[in-house]
């Protein structure tokens, strides 16, 4: 049943990696500042990191599975595989892997001599326990659970060989396994139960959770026995830093002031104006690491009027002008996207011509669609109903610059006669509006490694809400042709055939005016210049401080 050719490309890749990429500093996407190593790394010192993301409620990224968890879990947990700057999957806790010809059986050969920081050996049994933990409803996993949806079971072939048996072929399996939400934890750690494991999960990573003072900080200390860096790391052995103090500083101005004052060494989520200001001097380094998966985009709800009419969708896309707004509000830190996928995805397909602003064309299309009259305020009316677009905006997910951009969308759409009603909501209220389908346009991020995110966001299966009301296909795109392409792509392991299928799917999605792409999902870090060797890992663009050291 199982032919066992190690994919030769993978092998060669690893060879090249081992020789060539060791010295490379890999940053996701287009990096703005190349951290230059000045002098030799020195050991010691504690790095202070100030996070603007929400404080996790549980440090185990198997539970739930959101970005704040991924940010910190990357410091103490590791995955079976990683992804390098060019987008290739590279070995991490798994040395190599082979897949059967029917794509249903994956054998992972694990790294030898790796131990969890509680002394438990890392082996095939640990991998099995982790997958079972993710798939156990009691774990309350959402992200990792979805990512491993096609894994039926893991079999222990021997100590260092774990066999994943799938229900259907999954070309995204490696990408799914590269994410922090499916990272491998100590079985003994998991066995302590959720409450204890949430406080301090146990992994194989370069740091160990020492203490979590709620709403203040998490102390991480160095794992002196560390032995499992990913294939693209710069050195072997323990990290240079003695520890990391991971602080939660929700206010962005305070965060930047603390970086300026030297109280912290690294901040995340800097606002665009802050990045622009920091870039003017040379006191700080900027790591621009867009998140993978979907781009930030405005989805047009094609499931109900008025956007069930493609002409009206195109009219909206042609009417609004976002380029000037992006330029002015993001100070050149964000590049306009014309794709449904993040620019870090090698298979992202762009078509700028579909999104050129053309007010005359917009007006023409709306006239054709029967929205011929205008009321006293200049909004179009049909059968006594105004052409109104409800736009719930999450204040948790949209930064102030993005909220201002949406106001510009509102203003420019008015020229064509659209009334855009922006509602600023907190996260619960925002999801509430989506569940109730009380939206015509909406912007929702979706982070996932690889183009398979298209299946989650645009396959008609994702229109059916989960029992909790959650559904990811917010444009409510329902096209059997798209479904077929995305399903086939997910099961196609041949890289060229897979790329071709994803391109076809993206052409249909973009060409149907279901979305207005804005820019990559922004994800930036500002570092004091004394921090050397830090990078963002090219999976979900979380920072890695394994190679980092403090100069002077």
């Amino acid at each position, binding site marked *: 049943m199982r032919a066992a050719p190690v994919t030769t490309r993978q092998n060669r890749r690893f060879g090249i990696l081992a020789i060539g990429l060791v010295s490379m500093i890999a940053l996701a996407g287009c990096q703005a500042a190349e951290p230059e190593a000045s002098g030799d790394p020195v050991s010691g010192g504690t790095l202070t990191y100030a996070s603007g993301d929400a404080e996790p409620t549980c440090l185990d990224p198997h539970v739930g599975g959101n970005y704040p968890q991924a940010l910190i879990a990357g410091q103490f947990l590791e995955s079976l595989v990683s992804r390098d700057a060019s987008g290739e999957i590279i070995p991490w806790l798994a040395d190599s892997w082979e897949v059967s010809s029917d794509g249903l059986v994956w054998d992972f050969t694990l790294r030898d001599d790796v131990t969890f920081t509680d002394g438990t050996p890392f082996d095939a049994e640990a991998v099995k326990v982790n997958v079972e933990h993710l798939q156990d409803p009691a774990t*309350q996993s959402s992200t990792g659970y979805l990512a491993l949806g096609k894994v039926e079971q893991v079999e222990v072939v021997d100590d260092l060989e774990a066999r994943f048996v799938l229900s259907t072929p999954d070309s995204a399996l490696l990408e799914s396994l590269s994410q922090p939400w499916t990272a491998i934890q100590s079985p003994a750690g998991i066995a302590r139960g959720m*409450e204890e494991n949430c406080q301090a999960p146990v992994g194989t990573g370069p740091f160990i959770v020492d203490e979590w003072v*709620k709403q203040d900080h998490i102390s991480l200390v160095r794992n002196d026995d560390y032995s499992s860096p990913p294939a693209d790391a710069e050195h072997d052995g323990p990290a240079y830093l003695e520890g990391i103090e991971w602080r939660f500083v929700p*206010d962005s101005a305070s965060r930047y002031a603390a970086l300026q004052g030297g109280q912290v060494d690294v901040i995340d989520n800097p606002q665009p104006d802050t990045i622009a200001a920091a870039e003017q001097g040379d006191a700080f380094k900027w790591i621009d690491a867009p998140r993978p998966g979907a781009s930030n985009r405005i989805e047009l709800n094609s499931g109900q009027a008025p956007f069930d009419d493609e002409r009206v969708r195109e009219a909206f896309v042609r009417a609004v002008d976002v380029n000037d707004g992006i330029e002015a509000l993001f100070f050149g830190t964000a590049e306009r996207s014309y794709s449904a996928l993040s620019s870090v995805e090698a298979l992202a397909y762009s078509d700028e011509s579909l999104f050129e602003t053309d007010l005359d064309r917009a007006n023409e299309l709306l006239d054709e669609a029967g929205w011929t009259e205008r009321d006293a305020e200049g909004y179009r009316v049909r059968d006594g109903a105004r052409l109104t677009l409800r736009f719930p905006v999450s204040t948790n997910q949209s930064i102030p610059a993005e909220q201002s951009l949406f106001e510009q969308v509102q203003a420019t759409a008015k020229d064509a006669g659209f009334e855009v009603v922006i509602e600023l909501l907190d996260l*619960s209220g925002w999801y509430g509006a989506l569940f109730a389908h009380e939206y015509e346009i909406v912007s929702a991020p979706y982070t996932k490694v690889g183009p398979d995110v298209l299946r989650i966001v645009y396959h008609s299966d994702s229109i059916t809400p989960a029992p909790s009301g959650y559904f990811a296909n917010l444009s409510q795109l329902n096209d059997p042709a798209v479904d077929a392409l995305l399903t086939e792509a997910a099961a196609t392991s041949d890289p060229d055939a897979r790329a071709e299928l994803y391109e076809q799917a993206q052409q249909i999605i973009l060409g149907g005016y279901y979305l207005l792409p804005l820019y990559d999902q922004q994800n930036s870090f500002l570092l004091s210049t004394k921090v050397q060797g830090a990078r963002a890992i090219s999976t979900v663009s979380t920072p890695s401080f394994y190679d980092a050291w403090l100069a002077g």
Partner: protein
Amino acid sequence: MTRGSPADPRGQRRGRTIRHAGLLVAGAVFVMWAVATLTFFAIRLIPGDPAQAILGGPGSQASQEALDQVRRDYGLDQPLIVQYLAMLGRLLTGDLGTSYALKVPVADLLGAQLGGTLLLALLSLVLAWILALGLSLWSTGRGRIATAVGEGIELTAAALPHFWLAAVLIAIFSSGLGWLPPVATGTAAGLVLPVVTLAVPLAGFLAQVMRESLLDAMQQPFVVSAQARGESTTGVRLRHTVRHAALPGISLSGWALGWLLSGAVVVETIFAMPGLGRTLLQAVTLRDIPVVTGVVLLISLVYVLMTVLTDVSSRIADPRLRQEANR
């Protein structure tokens, strides 16, 4: 000792004091009950499913089984009135419940955060008092210019929003001069900016009411007689009029502490300090009902205690109030 006084004035006074205390306690219990009830029903009016909050927050992709399980475990499938009575029953036994999001007892969570917030609020109250007394003593009765300047400062200070003041203080003292850290560091230096941010607007309020009573007091005959005895202006102020100026300040302090605790939500967030304010903000966002209820109850309790305390200290500072109780 005097004619017409009751046979046992002391006992009667004690009786009145006990009755007064009884009323205070009953009032406090009523307030706590009302707060618990209002919070319970208000939080259910805002959109968001508590079962989802338990299963990883808004947007969680929980399965139907998990949702059902959680609804059963937490009694969310019961009628609202049953849930309400269950909550009251729990509260009566002193059980604040378990946080939905953090899965730890609410009492432990709040216990860990209360100290920091109380310290912040009390230090701010003390600083506000010092600033307000200083300003009103300096600017009252020293001519029109001093009065105008004093009133101007008070009005401006009272109108300053916390978030703006915090940003300005950070810009000047952290980013600009580099004297003080913009985020709490667990040291005294880290407390300075948050305390100043909270104290300045409050000092504006307090000074306004103090000035009025001070002016009032300075026109009283006893001030004139003290001056006639040859006491200096400063002496008169410190020995005789401060008490009058302080009275409305004292009765306002109960209110002020409640006001400071709500200001702590903003200040703790901006200065990244652990505390009740941040806990409350996070809990509301996550629809963590037990924590929201717990924080609101705790703040109400502090508020009620402060009101009792100010009532008592007003009686100490102002003999007239004690006599009233005797009448």
